[in-house]
Structures are given as structure tokens and as C-alpha cells.
């Protein structure tokens, strides 16, 4: 049976690969990602199940899924002109289809993608936490950018079903979970900073989310994280749903490591129980 060995939550700021290339391994971003990478390497995962919100790079309004599982045998990215290396990465399509079938049986109306590329929101995290691109992924896309968003509770429940699907996998497999996204972020909307393309409208919300995560106050977070609240934290605030789905997989645990960058509206975290 497959085992869930760890979970991590990280941001995916598109400028970070370039920033770290310029500033070197001692800058804050490099150190935070290195800490997460160290934990992830320690648990030796065979596969990385990723909760992510596409940024209207891969999916568009001609067929925009609420939930979609990527089940190709491989994918590549970034497909959105992010300044970073271009990578190919394997996908565990068998596990992906297993999760999708299990989810549909449990009443989750998951789309399926057997051919897709991915944008910075997956590629930036992988660039830092599995830089050799040697761990196959299963991307689970959650609509976090185009309201109406799925409810926080729905995403948490999806995570629970993903856990049960993984645990029903017949073979031995060490599975780590990755949640990608910010807590407070505005891109291209009225609350961006002057002269920039982004802004952090609600660092207070990011701090509050951080505390909930630190204390494993999952129910409180689910109650607070309404669609309205998420969008008040920025038009990208729905990315928190990826973290919430990840919590659904792992249940109520305090993180072993968690460190915010509140001025960025995001955080880095690791959950382990070994």
C-alpha cells in the first residue's frame, strides 16, 4: 500500500528562479526553498501529488475545469514565458487515473487531462524542491483564479478522497504532497502596487492563515476561507485552496517547519510525521 510520507506548501513567484540565480544560495528565498528541499529529500518520495491552480496558461474559458487531474505520462513547462529553465517532468499517469476514478466514485466531478503543459505555478516549486526533475508528479488542478471558486470545504474533502485513493494503491509507494500558492496576492487588478504588476493587499490575512496552519486549526480555517474572504485577500487569494486540499490529505498535523514571507503574502511549510 502506498504511504503518504510528507507534505509541503510553497509559493511559486515567477521571479524567484531569476532572483536566486542572481543573489545566490544565501538569499532568503534560496534558504527557505533549500529547507523545504532538504525535508523532501529526507522522506525519499517516489511521487509528488501537487495541488495547483493554473493561471489561465494551460486551461482557458473554452473549457475551464473546477478540478482536473493531469494523467499524461509526461509534461513540460513552464508554458507561460517565465524566466527560468524549461523542464520535462514525468507524470505518474497510473496513480493519476486511480485518484480520478476513486474521486469520481466518491462524487467528485473531476476533469481528466492526458495532454497538457504546466505554467510557473508548478515549475517554480519543482525547480527548487526537486531540481533534478527525477520525481514524477500527479498534478491536481483546482480553479483558484476564476470565480466562482470551489468552496474551501469542498477542496478539503477532495484532499481526503485523494488520501483514500492513494492509500488504496496496491503497490509500495512513498507519496509526498505539494501545495502551491499564495495567501494574499493581487495580479493585474486594482490593488497592485504602483508601477508593478502585482501587490499584496492583505498581509493580515496571510498572517492569520499562517497562525491557523501553525496551530493546525483546520476547521477554523475552513470556516474563514469563504470565496469572499479569499478574494478580499487578492484576485489570486484562491490559491489558498491548494493548501487546504493538501490539509485534507494529511489531516490535522502541526507543521514541522513553517516560515512566512508576509510582505509577499505567502509561506513555506513542511509537514512530516517520521
Amino acid at each position, binding site marked *: 500500500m502506498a504511504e503518504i510520507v510528507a507534505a509541503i506548501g510553497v509559493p511559486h513567484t515567477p521571479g524567484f528562479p531569476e532572483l536566486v540565480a542572481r543573489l545566490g544560495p544565501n538569499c532568503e528565498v534560496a534558504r527557505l526553498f533549500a529547507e523545504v528541499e532538504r525535508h523532501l529529500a529526507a522522506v525519499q518520495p517516489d511521487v509528488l501529488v501537487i495541488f495547483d491552480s493554473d*493561471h*489561465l*496558461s494551460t486551461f*482557458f*474559458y473554452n473549457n*475551464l475545469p473546477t478540478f482536473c487531474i493531469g494523467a499524461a505520462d509526461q509534461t513540460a513547462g513552464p*508554458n*507561460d*514565458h517565465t524566466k527560468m529553465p524549461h523542464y520535462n517532468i514525468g507524470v505518474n499517469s497510473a496513480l493519476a487515473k486511480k485518484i480520478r476514478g476513486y474521486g469520481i466514485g466518491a462524487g467528485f466531478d473531476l476533469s481528466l487531462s492526458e495532454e497538457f503543459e504546466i505554467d510557473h505555478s508548478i515549475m517554480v516549486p519543482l525547480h527548487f524542491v526537486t531540481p533534478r526533475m527525477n520525481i514524477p508528479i500527479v498534478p491536481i488542478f483546482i480553479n483558484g*483564479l*476564476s*470565480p*466562482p471558486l470551489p468552496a474551501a470545504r469542498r477542496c478539503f474533502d477532495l484532499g481526503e478522497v485523494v488520501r483514500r485513493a492513494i492509500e488504496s494503491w496496491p503497490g509500495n509507494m512513498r507519496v509526498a504532497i505539494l501545495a502551491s500558492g499564495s495567501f494574499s496576492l*493581487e*495580479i*493585474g*487588478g*486594482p*490593488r*497592485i*502596487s*504602483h*508601477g*508593478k*504588476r502585482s501587490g499584496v493587499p492583505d498581509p493580515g490575512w496571510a498572517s492569520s492563515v499562517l497562525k491557523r496552519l501553525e496551530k493546525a486549526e483546520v476547521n477554523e480555517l475552513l470556516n474563514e476561507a469563504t*470565496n469572499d474572504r479569499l*478574494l478580499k485577500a487578492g*484576485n*489570486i487569494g484562491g490559491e489558498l485552496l491548494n493548501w487546504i486540499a493538501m490539509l485534507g490529505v494529511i489531516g490535522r498535523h502541526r507543521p514541522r517547519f513553517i516560515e512566512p514571507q508576509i510582505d509577499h503574502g505567502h509561506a513555506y511549510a513542511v509537514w512530516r510525521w517520521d
Partner: protein
Amino acid sequence: MMTIYAVNKVCYRILREPAFRSDLAVDPIAALSSEPLSEIERDLLITGEVGRLYELGAHPFLLSHLSRFGLFGLTDLVYSERIRAVGSGTENHTGGLPS
């Protein structure tokens, strides 16, 4: 009836289609002529009126591609001034109108 879909699609194509992007840089009116935009939508794009496009429901992340690729005379500075002039608050951009 007008949806904002065509505007969103122009922004999406700008991200995904380098040829479309460079056509737009050279002759925006010609490059947009094949798109099923309303006259208002087309004029707002050509003049880089991202604030108005946002108010009409275009997705801000997609709109941000316009200044990212320096189209329609938009720099990050001009873009941010125009979009910040919009009263924030309502978030009824995009395909999915809240019910």
C-alpha cells in the same frame, strides 16, 4: 449580447502565440481584425484602457499580459495607474459570474 470572452481570449493568445503577439506589436488594428470583439472592446484594447476592460469583466491576470509584453502602449507604470484608478472591491471579472 456581449460577453468579455473575446477580450480574455486575445490576452490568452498573447501569452500563448508568439506570432500573434508580434503581429499585435506591429499593427494592432490589423491583428485584432479577425477577433470577434465588439467595437467597444476593440477600442479599449487598442487604447490600452485596462481599467475599463477590468470593469467589463476581463480577468486581471490575463489583462496583465498586455503590459508584461508592452502592448497597446502599456508599461507597468501606465497599466498600474489605470487599473488602480478602478474602484476595487467587486470581483465579478471572468467567465464565472457569482450567482
